[in-house]
């Protein structure tokens, strides 16, 4: 069974688990510049996707399109069968930026609680995680730092707060735009492992943009390779490495083979 397929076939038949996201010939244009051209793909619910591609291939644009930050110039995007706007209002997805984007005057805990406060006064029903904000901070390994202000935390800790904040509304789709790009190697490894653990525990779908080939192979079940000028899908590479993954796996020949293959692919993009 292919988990991801260019949509030459119609929508999946009934009884099939609904896709987390479906893009049908979606294009994004900024003025005369075409950032994404006719992108069609289906994101299977519960899977971990990493997105690779040369700069300018529309990796971030794709996440922005899915998260309703920018509109599609043509084509359709569906999130769990809803329009991107409906999905946004229902908090189906959460976004983790490269920069943690914490509010500096709020403590770690208050930052995690922010999504719960937004819309509450307007009587909007907010989906909440089974875990309290406090438990989520514990899940990302920040127990005891609940009251710390962002400037008192390291870059890695801030990003973990951002992940906890993203999880607080129990999103079914987690969009991550190079979340660990600015961190040092050690912190990055650690957070990669933690993210995999969170993914397994929460069962959420993850779309993870990265610049790093090893990171893409290490995290993903599928690597979406995008191509630039204009941005479009080049290839979907299935990473058939066993879970749970361990850092040591990166030294195995299989891992190296995937990395080498992706590197070659990237060079021709």
């Amino acid at each position, binding site marked *: 069974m292919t988990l991801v397929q260019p949509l030459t076939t119609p929508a999946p038949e009934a009884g099939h688990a609904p896709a987390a996201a479906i893009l049908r010939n979606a294009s994004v244009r900024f003025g005369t510049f075409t950032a994404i051209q006719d992108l069609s793909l289906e994101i299977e619910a519960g899977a971990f996707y990493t997105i690779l591609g040369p700069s300018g291939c529309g990796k971030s644009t794709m996440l922005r399109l899915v998260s*309703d930050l920018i509109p599609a110039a043509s084509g359709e995007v569906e999130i769990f069968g809803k329009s991107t706007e409906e999905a*946004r209002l229902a*908090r189906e*997805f959460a976004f983790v930026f490269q920069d943690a984007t914490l*509010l500096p*005057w709020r403590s770690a805990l208050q930052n995690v609680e922010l999504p719960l406060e*937004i*819309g509450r006064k307007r009587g909007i029903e907010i989906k909440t995680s089974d875990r309290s904000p406090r438990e989520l901070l514990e899940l990302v390994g920040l127990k005891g730092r609940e009251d710390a*202000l962002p400037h008192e935390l390291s870059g890695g800790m801030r990003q973990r707060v951002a992940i906890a904040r993203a999880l607080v509304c129990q999103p079914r789709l987690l969009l991550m735009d190079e979340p660990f790009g600015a961190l040092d190697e050690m912190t990055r490894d650690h957070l990669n492992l933690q993210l995999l653990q969170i993914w397994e525990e929460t069962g959420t779908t993850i779309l993870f943009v990265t610049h790093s080939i090893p990171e893409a192979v290490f995290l993903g079940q599928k690597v979406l390779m995008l191509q630039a000028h204009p941005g479009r899908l080049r290839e979907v590479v299935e990473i058939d490495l066993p879970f749970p993954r361990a850092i040591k796996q990166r030294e195995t020949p299989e891992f190296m083979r995937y990395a080498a293959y992706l590197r070659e692919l990237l060079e021709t993009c």
Partner: protein
Amino acid sequence: MAVIDDIPAQSAQDTERAEATRRKINAVAVPLGTAAALLACWQIGVRVFGVPNYIAPAPSDVAVTLVQEFPLLMQNFWPTLYESLLGFAVGNLAAVLIAVAFVHNRVVERAFFPIAVFVNTIPILAIAPILVLIFGAGLTAKVVIAALICFFPTLVNMVRGLQSVSPQALELARILSASKAEVFWKIRLPSSLPYLFSALKIAATTCVIGAIVGEWVGADRGLGALIIDATFNFRSALLYATVFLSSGLSVLMFATVSIVERLVVRW
């Protein structure tokens, strides 16, 4: 072994602490010492060259006047404090509200910002008589002048502060489907606070200038009125004492704002 190791560590720590204390004392002692030396030069200069008291009083004369005329000084201190505080409140509140309007409506900004700049370019000394003519010699004119002098720096800073929100924070708000009001209260307003306090610190001292200028133009009470009175009566020591008190008022206002800032802006 451990005990022996402990000793140098302990003494190193002690030296460090002593060093820190010395640095702290220096930080206070150097400026204080300089000020005291300058005062001493002034005192000696006035006495040695026999400068008449009405031209330049010695610091000791000023100090004596400050004590002797304390009731008179305080009688004039309170009105100025009152005018300054009211002007500070009115001017900054107006600036903050207008800044909010500017940020939410570009048309309002385009319409009124040039006018705000124009008003700011008029010297306060030139506009004060106009305001006294309009509002009379009472409290209102002084408050308006003090408010006017506070207004512009706060307006400019507050607009910058409200716009200082990172684009990513706004994207976060969008993903959370935040309303305009929520973006304002939860993100824009707190983001602007450091900018607002920079402006308030400027306003804390300028509002006193505004109140005093207002009193110069027409008043029978207040530090400004006392300055005029003392000058025309050649009571130089009283003049200096009044000036000293005026600057004391500014320092008091500034210190208050700084303390509030430290309590509010903890990040």
